[in-house]
């Protein structure tokens, strides 16, 4: 019995020791978790890209670098997309209205590049190529076919180092002919063509037919190359109407933050700072509103300029291409929730190791010109400029206005050839008339600050502006 009592005591002691050991283990675990959390938070707050500072992360990153190459690029948008109905009549689409067609045409490009035969054409006949039903991309800059296909995630057999500035996707009806995709280098008048039957071609063909029906009353365009207007140095799609005048919607410019109080402004600017909320804000005597933290400054001036500056130090150098930089640009633009007006990618500027993506506003597929390019003293101005360095946005500037239709209509009566004749007369005063580089019909601002349709003719590096109303 005594022996049994002793055994019970020992068991009790063992049980007490077990509990205290469990408590100790739990405390050790809790201290470990707290230590790890403290290290993580300190690293995040002080060292920014904390994970990049440890040795194991570096080894792991070596393996995943190759896989990430394709993930870090976005499909470059066209400046504008022209849809041809196969009857020498076209529509030119800017901004969101071009997206549906581009999405469908990109599917044909991907399928054709993956499965169909490729051929290089030394000489192209553009009027013949665009004579069929087609979607034509006019890119804002020249880039490589391989880069575009990589961004589309197309699995191609070879790396295609062919520079292109426009793409023509000519789908077949599914019964006759073959789908054709042309990557065109306009400077050298060369093209790379993928030809064959694609499953996605019929969808694009039907979509073009649908657009033809929908755009029955919209502004139509003609091709200068198809009409034999050799005075134009390159093919330009110009608007034309058969009636004596073209009615259009009058637009007004409204300040995006005019009625916004400090709290509204803070709420709209906050997404630029991510999840960190340690920023401070200030409104100075001029009315400029500034929000900043250690790395980022966002400023909104009363003249309507919204500016973002990032002073973050990049932990590593990465290879930057137009497509990788454009991905950073589009991801950043998604943060600006205050943009309500439609816009399009108008230009890509290359400055040393920085790429600047310029965007301009458009209303009903008609571009809005914020400055008068015919005024020699006027500074070139785009609605949105995004500077990307090392695949990270360093500077962002936006003229923060919304364009709304006033409900009134105005009319244009001067056709493009009258505008060309006026510009040609002015140009020949300055010297012999050479090639006309371009002509655009855009919303332009007059001296009273009102917008109306204007012609802008580009001859020998000079821009000639003309009203669309006869004087």
């Amino acid at each position, binding site marked *: 019995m005594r022996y049994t009592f002793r055994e019970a005591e020992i068991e009790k002691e063992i049980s007490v020791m077990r509990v205290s050991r469990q408590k100790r283990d739990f405390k050790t675990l809790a201290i470990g978790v707290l230590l790890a959390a403290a290290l993580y938070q300190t690293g995040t707050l002080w060292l920014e890209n904390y994970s990049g500072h440890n040795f194991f992360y570096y080894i792991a990153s070596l393996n995943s670098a190759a896989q990430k190459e394709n993930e870090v690029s976005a499909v470059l948008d066209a400046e504008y997309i022209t849809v041809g109905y196969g009857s020498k*009549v076209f529509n030119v689409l800017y901004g969101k209205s071009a997206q549906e067609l581009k999405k469908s045409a990109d599917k044909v490009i991907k399928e054709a590049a993956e499965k169909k035969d490729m051929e290089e054409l030394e000489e192209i006949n553009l009027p013949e190529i665009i004579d069929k039903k087609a979607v034509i991309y006019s890119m804002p800059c020249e880039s490589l076919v391989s880069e575009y296909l990589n961004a589309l995630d197309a699995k191609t057999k070879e790396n295609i180092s062919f520079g292109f500035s426009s793409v023509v996707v000519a789908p077949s009806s599914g019964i006759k002919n073959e789908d054709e995709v042309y990557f065109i280098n306009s400077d050298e008048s060369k093209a790379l063509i993928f030809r064959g039957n694609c499953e996605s071609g019929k969808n694009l063909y039907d979509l073009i037919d649908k657009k033809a029906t929908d755009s029955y009353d919209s502004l139509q365009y*003609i091709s200068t190359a198809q*009409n034999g*207007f050799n005075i134009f140095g390159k093919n330009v799609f110009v608007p034309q*109407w058969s009636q004596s005048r073209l009615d259009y919607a009058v637009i007004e410019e409204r300040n995006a933050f005019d009625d916004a109080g400090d709290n509204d402004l803070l709420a709209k600017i906050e997404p630029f700072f991510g999840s960190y909320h340690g920023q401070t804000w200030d409104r100075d005597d001029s009315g400029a509103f500034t929000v900043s933290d250690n790395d980022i400054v966002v400023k909104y001036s009363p003249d309507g300029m919204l500016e973002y500056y990032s002073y973050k130090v990049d932990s590593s150098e990465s290879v930057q291409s137009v497509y990788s930089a454009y991905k950073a640009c589009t991801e950043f633009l998604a943060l600006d929730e205050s943009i309500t007006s439609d816009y399009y990618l108008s230009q890509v500027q290359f400055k040393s190791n920085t790429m600047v993506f310029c965007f301009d506003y458009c209303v009903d597929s008609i571009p809005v010109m914020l400055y008068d390019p015919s005024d020699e003293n006027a500074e070139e101005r785009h609605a949105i400029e995004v500077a990307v360095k090392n695949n990270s946005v360093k500077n962002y500037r936006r003229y923060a206005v919304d364009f709304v239709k006033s409900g009134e209509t105005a009319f244009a009566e001067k056709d493009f*050839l009258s505008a060309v*004749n*006026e510009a*040609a007369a002015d140009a020949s005063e300055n010297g012999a008339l050479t090639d006309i580089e371009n002509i655009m019909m855009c919303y332009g601002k007059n001296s009273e600050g009102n917008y109306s349709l204007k012609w802008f003719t580009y001859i020998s590096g000079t821009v000639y502006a003309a009203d669309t109303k006869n004087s």
Partner: protein
Amino acid sequence: MKKILFVFLFCFGFCFMSCAAYAGEKDVAQVEFTGGVDFEKERISTFNDSKQISGSAESGTVIKITVYTVNLRGNLRERESYEIEVGKSGLFSQSIDLRLGENLVEFSACLEGKEDFIDEVVINRKERGIKYKLENEIYLPGSGN
């Protein structure tokens, strides 16, 4: 006698020369069509509701385009009329509206000091539905389609 014969033959030959000059080409306003409607053909067909007429001419040339519809009896009815003056660029371009059926397009170019250039073409605008059928159906001999 030889002199008289020579003078007679000379005058006789001169008469022929003047006749040849009279039958020669008149100084007509110069027009070159570079795109759109082909005026070299007498008749053309289209499914579109409009057509482009583009080309080049001397600066100052006044171009008139008149579109007539033709009924079953062959009577003409004026539908549209366009007038353009060619400017410094030397180019002209006009989109013309077409009605279903036969459209007679009359084109004239006038330049001061020159004879008018006149040409015409009949454009037969057909139903768009026919085009859709042609593009989307396969017709086989003996299939009854």
